[in-house]
């Protein structure tokens, strides 16, 4: 992908845009809706016979969805010419990390209840958990370097190279989903196809 398309939001610190807009707060609130649903269901006791499993799965679903949503920003800009969408990319990426962190917390704090020896066994012995944790570490790294200050400190080029790790995190997330299932891979296949499409647009853009 060319620098000009990937640059938006990265080289221009947000403080310079200074556009007072309702859009960002609106999207921020929209991103919290999945969490709000979860809370409503939990309070209403609608999470079924195994609420911990339901919570963990739900948060994992949304972590993966938000990674894909954040990765859709560039293709949307390329395909529709709506360049302003780039302003939401950082926030969407941070929400992906937010849901992934909740997903991981649910596994550690609810599912395993801080049973560290068991958690460690899981990470080293079970590849799908290894991959999931790796994706979480990657997103943590990207979240930590998501500020304007870090963009400036690293320099635009290096920052962009670093943040390409999100592609790896997305692939790990989809593989993690595939590997945890026993049968019927329809759902992760949908995520894989969407991810491939999002990659495809980037590759296409680069070659055309």
């Amino acid at each position, binding site marked *: 992908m060319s620098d000009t398309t990937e640059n938006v939001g990265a080289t221009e610190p947000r403080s310079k845009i200074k556009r007072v807009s309702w859009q960002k707060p609106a999207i921020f609130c929209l991103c919290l809706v999945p969490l709000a649903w979860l809370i409503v269901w939990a309070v209403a006791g609608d999470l*079924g*016979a*195994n609420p*911990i*499993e339901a919570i963990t799965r739900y948060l994992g679903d949304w972590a993966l969805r938000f990674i894909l949503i954040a990765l859709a920003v560039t293709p949307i800009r390329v395909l529709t010419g709506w360049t302003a969408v780039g302003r939401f990319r950082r926030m969407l990426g941070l929400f992906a990390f937010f849901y992934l962190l909740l997903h991981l917390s649910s596994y550690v704090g*609810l*599912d*395993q*209840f801080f*049973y560290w020896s*068991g958690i460690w*066994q*899981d990470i080293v*012995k*079970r590849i*799908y958990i290894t991959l999931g944790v790796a994706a979480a570490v990657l997103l943590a790294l990207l979240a930590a370097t998501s500020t304007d200050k870090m963009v400036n400190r690293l320099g635009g080029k290096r920052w962009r190279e670093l943040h390409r790790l999100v592609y790896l995190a997305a692939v790990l997330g989809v593989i993690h989903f595939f*590997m*945890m*299932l*026993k*049968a*019927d*891979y*329809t759902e992760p296949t949908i995520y894989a196809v969407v991810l491939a499409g999002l990659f495809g647009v980037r590759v296409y853009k680069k070659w055309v």
Partner: protein
Amino acid sequence: MLIRMASKSTPKSSEITPKDAYLNRRKFIASTGLIAGSAALGIRSGPVSAAEELPGVNPALSSIINGYSKLGDDDPLTPYADVTSYNNFYEFGTAKGDPVENAGPFNPKPWEITVDGMCVNPGTLGLEDFLKPHDLEERIYRLRCVEAWSMVVPWVGISLADVVKRFEPNGSAKYVKFETIVRPEEMVGQRSRRILPWPYVEGLRLDEAMNPLAILAVGLYGEELPNQNGAPIRLMTPWKYGFKAIKSIVKITFTNKKPRNTWNVMAANEYGFYANVNPNVDHPRWSQARERRIGDFLRRETLMFNGYEEEVGELYAGMNLRKEY
């Protein structure tokens, strides 16, 4: 350094919380009135069921005698609502909530079971005739899923050993093979072969089938099996992972060849023929050392043979359970 050793008599914290939760849930279920209806109608004809009240969802079973009875305080019954809404029954879809949602159109009446293979009395019988010579017994068993969750269910069923004796397997029969019905028009999951190769197949060694713990269940909580739990008749071998407990059985075959059970065909490195509950042998993708009892917050230690070592341990004496999983 002070090390606290938990003595056997000290209840673990995991054993305290769930009881309250369980009692509260019971109250909740009772207050929904789900139960009250049937009692008021007097449907209950004095069955000896662990269920204080019948759920009143399906027809009640009569003339139940007590079989293997109550488990200890650590193992309260899992509420009816959970037992009947959280199921692995891929014929109706792969999510736990799919069976209860999709099993409505399934009609298990009338039902026929074919018994064939190496036996003296093969034949095809209607369910009533199949059940007639046997006593209905209530058996309260732990149910441990290979996915590391568990329940306690008051099944109603007949002794599998009695059934085997009745059909008289001949000397060369070594195994019993079971098959689930194939009825894609009523079972949405069976419309896709991407889920599992149908029919679902399971098997037991003949001596396993003769163990007094093994039953063919036709009910739970004093009533006929709900569709999502494997109506009208299913296997229950409580020392084995739940996937051995094949549902909606239409065929029983005595054979000298070890049956290839469906999950073993799907992923032989993950699911063996024996599938005995064993906390020391992990599933490749998760530990089997601990399990979540439905309704509990904390996981609990999984017991060897699901706590039935005394009854079934002898069957596997001398076997390498790490290889024969």
